[in-house]
């Protein structure tokens, strides 16, 4: 019995020593030469290569990625057991924790994002009584709210009915953001170092930052903003001028227009997708042709200071544009700032003086 215990103790000691050696070796391996060790696992080669061409090239893998013992052991098990997926990728829990890694350096961006609506949590999105009583939860919700979540909506929220009460059943996800940094940004990508834009850019054809890309839940990969589609929209039968700013192609992925609905006027006339349908907010009327980014900031979508970018304090009518009866000053206004037209207020025609001023571009 004693002998047996001694053997067991020896085995245990050997395991501890080997394990410790393995773990410290693994740390070294991961951390050496800006992650060159990581490339030795062929699964990682493309990712490590990608980050070396990116703005984050001076970072080590471990600056952003999880280094816990459990993770290392899991990597080794997957690698040796060859049980990995076709392409390795971050797990949904890793993406969630990545947001705090971004925060370490990008504190201001994080703060503005966190203050805005796009930091909404799974609990806020998926247990919202108004939404859940009006529309059924479904897998397509995850396309924009929880694109990184790796499963079906039925494993995320229960019950999937109109009566509730609803709760997030996926452990640890309730208070995590549904649209984390990696929704609109990709890190392992080719491209140059970026400078922070000093101010909002309202001109068409603004440069598209290399970091802008939309994470497509179907393919589980990012698509660069420069390659994403911009819609051809209609207002009734009339084509709408959509700003060619490609950055807003990311916005359109979720704030997307719909094909005409059954029974709609547009469907009866074979008109194309209508501006303002679905979650689309393409400007019409006085603001037609502007980019989302003409007014909205990227990280918190705030548009509070945007009027001044273009407007003099007093409009051509002699009224403060910020105090006009639009949804800008009053969310309950009939005049949505995205679609407001001169004729909404000037129901008998736009005054001549104003029209001349507009025409001369003053």
């Amino acid at each position: 019995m004693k002998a047996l215990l001694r053997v067991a103790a020896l085995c245990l000691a050997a395991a501890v020593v080997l394990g410790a050696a393995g773990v410290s070796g693994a740390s070294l391996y991961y951390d050496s030469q800006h992650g060159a060790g990581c490339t030795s696992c062929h699964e990682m080669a493309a990712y490590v290569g990608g980050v070396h061409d990116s703005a984050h090239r001076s970072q080590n893998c471990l600056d952003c990625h999880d280094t816990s013992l459990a993770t290392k052991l899991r990597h080794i098990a997957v690698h040796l057991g060859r049980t990995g997926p076709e392409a390795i990728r971050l797990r949904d829990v890793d993406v969630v924790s990545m947001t705090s890694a971004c925060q370490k350096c990008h504190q201001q961006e994080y703060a503005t994002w966190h203050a805005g609506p796009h930091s909404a949590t799974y609990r806020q999105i998926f247990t919202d009584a108004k939404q859940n009583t009006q529309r059924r939860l479904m897998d397509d919700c995850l396309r924009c709210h929880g694109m990184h979540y790796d499963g079906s909506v039925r494993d995320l929220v229960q019950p999937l009915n109109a009566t509730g009460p609803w709760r997030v059943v996926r452990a640890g996800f309730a208070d995590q953001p549904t649209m984390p940094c990696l929704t609109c940004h990709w890190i392992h990508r080719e491209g140059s170092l970026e400078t922070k834009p000093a101010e909002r850019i309202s001109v068409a054809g603004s440069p598209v930052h290399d970091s802008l890309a939309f994470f497509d839940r179907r393919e589980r990969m990012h698509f660069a903003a420069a390659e994403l589609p911009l819609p051809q929209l209609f207002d009734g039968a009339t084509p709408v001028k959509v700003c060619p700013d490609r950055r807003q192609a990311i916005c359109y992925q979720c704030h997307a227009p719909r094909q005409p609905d059954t029974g709609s006027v547009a469907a009866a006339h074979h008109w194309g997708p209508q501006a303002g349908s679905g979650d689309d907010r393409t400007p019409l009327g006085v603001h037609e042709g502007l980019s989302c980014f003409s007014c909205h900031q990227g990280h918190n979508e705030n548009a509070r200071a945007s009027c001044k970018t273009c407007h003099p304090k007093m409009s051509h009518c002699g009224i403060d544009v910020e105090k006009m009866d639009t949804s800008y000053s009053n969310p309950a206004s009939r005049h949505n700032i995205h679609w407001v037209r001169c004729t909404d207020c000037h129901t008998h025609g736009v005054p001549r003086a104003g029209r001349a001023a507009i025409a001369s571009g003053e």
Partner: protein
Amino acid sequence: MKRVHAVIVGAGAAGGIVAKQLSSAGLTVVLLERGPWYTAADCRKDDLRNQRTTVLGNAFGPEDEGNPRVWIDARGAAHIVLPSEGSYQNNAACVGGGTLSYGAMAWRFLPQDFRMRSTYGAPEGSSLEDWPIGYDDLEPFYDQAEYEIGVSGDDSPTPFHSPRRRSLPMPPLPPNREFAILEPAAKRLGLHPFPIPMLRNSVPYNGRGPCMRCRWCVGFACEVDAKNGSQNTVIPAALATGNCELRTRSMVKEILTDNRGRARGVSYFDANGRLQEQLSDIVVVSACAIESARLLLNSKSRLFPNGLGNRYDQVGRNLQGHHYTGALGFFDFDTYDDIGPGASIAVTDYNHGTPGLCGGGLLANEFIRLPIHTLDRLPPGTPRWGPGHKQAMRAWHRRTIIVMGPTQQIPTAEGRVTLDPWVKDRWGLPVARLQGNSHPHTFEIGEVQAARAAAWLKEAGAMQTALMAGRPEIVSSGQHQAGTCRMGDDPRASVVNRYCRLHDVDNVFVIDGSVHVNNGGFNPVLTIMAIAYFASDALLRSWKGTSFRS
């Protein structure tokens, strides 16, 4: 395990409906399904791995490992085939069955489809027969299927439709570009085009929203849950009664019988591979034509040495499905609008009444295509590879319309399912062996239909057309598989009676496409659903608590 009133084998189009009808009437039901309950998140619209394009496997089962079949070709050679290969003639194995990922066309058969033999006579060598029931018997149940499962469409523009008591519960989806191109052309040809009826929400219905018109439809699970299958309609309703228990990943081994020749339940392998017995008063087989026949044939006992219901060697015969033919049209303008489901317009003028042909079939434009579907659907003479192929892909992917349709198959007794004596599946059960073919007249009908499709496309302005009309060496059954447990009044020439009850065993029912005497010139799912309602209704009327009224 607790004895129940009914065990239903297979949670597909028919099994789900039977489960809901019986459990709503107060019977206790166990619904056994060999596959899992998949969601859209399990496939994520993978162009290479779904239920239609299966080059990397079936998204919704069965898996390639451990589920082989054997196909006997025209020369008598046996091939072991995998579920993702075409000659397997697969239908999905999952909760919802084919209805989880189908294109969802919702056709009623025409009255003539139930009287094929008396209308046309049986071509020599065929087993063409009349149904023991007529269209009028099924009409109330077609209506029930259309309203309970949910169908959108409008067949009022054509006189070639079956009489109906009321219009469909939802209007059709707005027309897409192919509809706008094909509709005036059909009218110029004197045809009667109309929107395809679909088991798909065009407006909010049954507590779910409308179709979002995406590119990934047939072969994929719907991410907005607008496609109506048994998995999002009758099965949840059955479970909500509290009388129905669904057991997934449960493969039924055989139907158990007692000494008096009545069924006493089934034995099945559960999700952990353990053999279980579920005793019941009734057994309903709804496993789809090939697997239902296989289960009956595998249920051998002293009283039924050749399998259950197979006294006269009828089980597995008359396998049929649909022989698809049509034409490609190549246009000098964009026909593709990226608006799903794509399939939008049909004519049923050609289903019956062509002199010299036993029936015909509908013609419709094809579902929206993915780039992978265009590879071999290019103008004749296009290089198979190289710069010419790449340029042709670019030139034609957006400028092609396909018109095709299911040709009425003329069945033969030799086109059949038997058990393979050697090959076993992962549970050790003998697998299905497919042999024989449709009657050659099927191909003659198909060729006429293909020429008609080409004529329609030419009238619509196609610069060039190409016929799609092969002569496969196998019964094209696949997702439309039917016929193997034929319904009839004569026990020597059929397997079940007009109420889908086995002639041999009075508490075993086969309720799915297997009972179709012939499969019409239409996608069969709405007929399968109508028969499920019809047979459930008959079953419940003769049920008296624990047994049947005689």
